[in-house]
């Protein structure tokens, strides 16, 4: 009856940073591909495009979200992930090697690499889901928890369909359901996994950290019912080849538009007027979500692939924006928190861990990436410039994270620790 509140405040800092530090590595690899093969990456279903998409959605976005889940689980999930060091190590290895292998498989088209990637990533995702999901079902139920459950179940479905597709790529034999599988795979990934987790986090973060009006109870209770219902019905429609499948896309887009409107209103009317970089990232993220939804609406209307590309790029950048904003808060907080909890009296305050100037530079680079990425759909050679800005963005992110880690380690070694002796 009383299970549900953790005695541990947070997992060891290395658990979260392990995932976060991998993000710039994948980001830099992705940026190099963008600089070398801009036109191919902007060609729908080109192997290099698929490699880039998976580097972005798995290497950058999912890697960050898994790291954040390890931290969030002890706060929102109520029960911490057991044996965090060992589990994080295992999951991180499976993900890291799996993502590089998958990107390599798409680039080289070597069949066994698809099988290896599916095995590694499939094991990593299934292991993660089965590790965390039972913890979420044993805790008191609240709306954010519902969102986390939906996100993890969607990640699981995405992985299963990914394995099926990897097998098809390995054998070069695509079933008649290939398009249905592909559409279900990316729908669950984009909306069920990424969208649901961001919405679940926003329900807590926007209201509490920025002292804003709570989201309406109707919205909180129903959003995590409507999303899975729409995704399941869309899947059925796809596999049964029924007409009007776009109705479900429209429903999901309307839901996300509602999320955009309510979040923007809350951010604008928030009580905390301190304007930090995380607010900038949330704001631009919401702008990108709006662009993505409008573009997707346009695509449903006229089926122009260029517009679909804008929608996908803007959606990915929306997720990246929220991630960069949150990472800029989480990392300095963890450095300060772990040091001060261990009794270090000279634990650096958050603004000393990642100085404001560097956070602002990161945001500036992100804006450049957004601007050039969206425009490059219309003029593909511009994508080289997106690659350059993206390279600088991830290099700076990596530098910020490494400097934060160095400061943490330096204080551990040289700091003054309070002891009763």
């Amino acid at each position, binding site marked *: 009856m009383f299970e549900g509140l*953790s*005695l541990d405040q947070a997992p060891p800092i290395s658990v979260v940073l392990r995932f976060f530090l991998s993000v710039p590595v994948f980001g830099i690899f992705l940026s190099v591909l963008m600089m070398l093969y801009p036109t191919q990456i902007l060609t729908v279903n080109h192997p290099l495009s698929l490699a880039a998409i998976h580097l972005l959605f798995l290497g950058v976005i999912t890697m960050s979200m898994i790291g954040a889940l390890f931290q969030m689980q002890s706060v929102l999930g109520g029960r911490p992930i057991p044996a965090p060091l060992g589990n994080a190590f295992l999951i991180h290895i499976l993900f890291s090697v799996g993502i590089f292998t998958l990107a390599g498989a798409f680039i080289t088209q070597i069949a066994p690499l698809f099988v290896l990637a599916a095995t590694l990533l499939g094991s990593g995702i299934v292991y993660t889901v089965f590790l965390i999901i039972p913890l979420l079902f044993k805790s008191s139920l609240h709306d954010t928890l519902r969102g986390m459950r939906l996100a993890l179940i969607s990640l699981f479905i995405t992985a299963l369909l990914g394995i099926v597709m990897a097998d098809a790529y390995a054998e070069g034999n695509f079933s008649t359901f290939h398009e249905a599988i592909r559409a279900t795979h990316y729908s669950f990934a984009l909306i069920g996994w990424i969208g649901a987790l961001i919405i679940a986090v926003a329900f807590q973060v926007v209201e509490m950290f920025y002292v804003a009006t709570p989201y309406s109870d109707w919205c909180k209770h129903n959003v995590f019912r409507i999303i899975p219902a729409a995704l399941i019905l869309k899947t059925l429609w796809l596999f049964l080849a029924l007409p009007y499948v776009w109705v479900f896309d429209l429903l999901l887009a309307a839901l996300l538009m509602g999320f955009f409107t309510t979040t923007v209103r809350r951010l604008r009317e928030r*009580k*905390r007027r301190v304007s930090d970089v995380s607010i900038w990232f949330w704001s631009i993220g919401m702008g990108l979500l709006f662009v993505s939804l409008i573009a997707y609406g346009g695509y449903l209307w006229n089926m122009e692939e260029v517009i679909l590309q804008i929608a996908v790029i803007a959606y990915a950048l929306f997720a990246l924006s929220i991630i960069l904003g949150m990472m800029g808060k989480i990392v300095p907080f963890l450095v*300060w*928190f772990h040091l001060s909890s261990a009794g270090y009296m000279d634990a650096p*305050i958050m603004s000393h861990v990642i100085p404001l100037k560097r956070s602002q530079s990161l945001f500036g680079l992100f804006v450049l990436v957004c601007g050039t990425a969206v425009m490059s759909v219309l003029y593909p050679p511009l994508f080289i410039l997106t690659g350059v800005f993206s390279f600088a963005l991830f290099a700076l992110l990596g530098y910020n994270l490494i400097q934060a880690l160095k400061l943490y380690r330096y204080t551990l070694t040289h700091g003054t620790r309070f002891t009763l002796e």
Partner: protein
Amino acid sequence: MILEFMRDDHRACDHLYAEAESALLAKDAEKAKTIFDQFYTATNHHFDMEEKELFITFEKRTGMMGGPTQMMRYEHQQLRSLIESMRLALNENRTNDFFGIGESMMIMLQQHNMKEEQMLYPMIDRTLGGDAELIIQTLRDMPI
């Protein structure tokens, strides 16, 4: 219900803190000090309501002495220390230190509030059942 009563009190404290920050941003140090003092008093009163009444009642009913309530008491201590440091910084006109410590304090406070609102208060509500109203009245009557 305990959850609603205590959650509203969390939000009232948050609003005071946000107002103090806004006053300081507007370079009105005196107003910031006055409102921050209100935040300081309100937050300490909230912790007292929990530690002197709510947690004790919960522990007596469940027999859980070293469990979640103990963790919350530990976090109260960490938060009290941060809020005290902020008050000192504000009184000594060290604005940058105030905002610097405030960032950590706010994240920690909100993480703490999330744990209470999502987990502990629902547990307490389940434990108290029909007696919740009585406890709320006792909490309301506690002197500030």
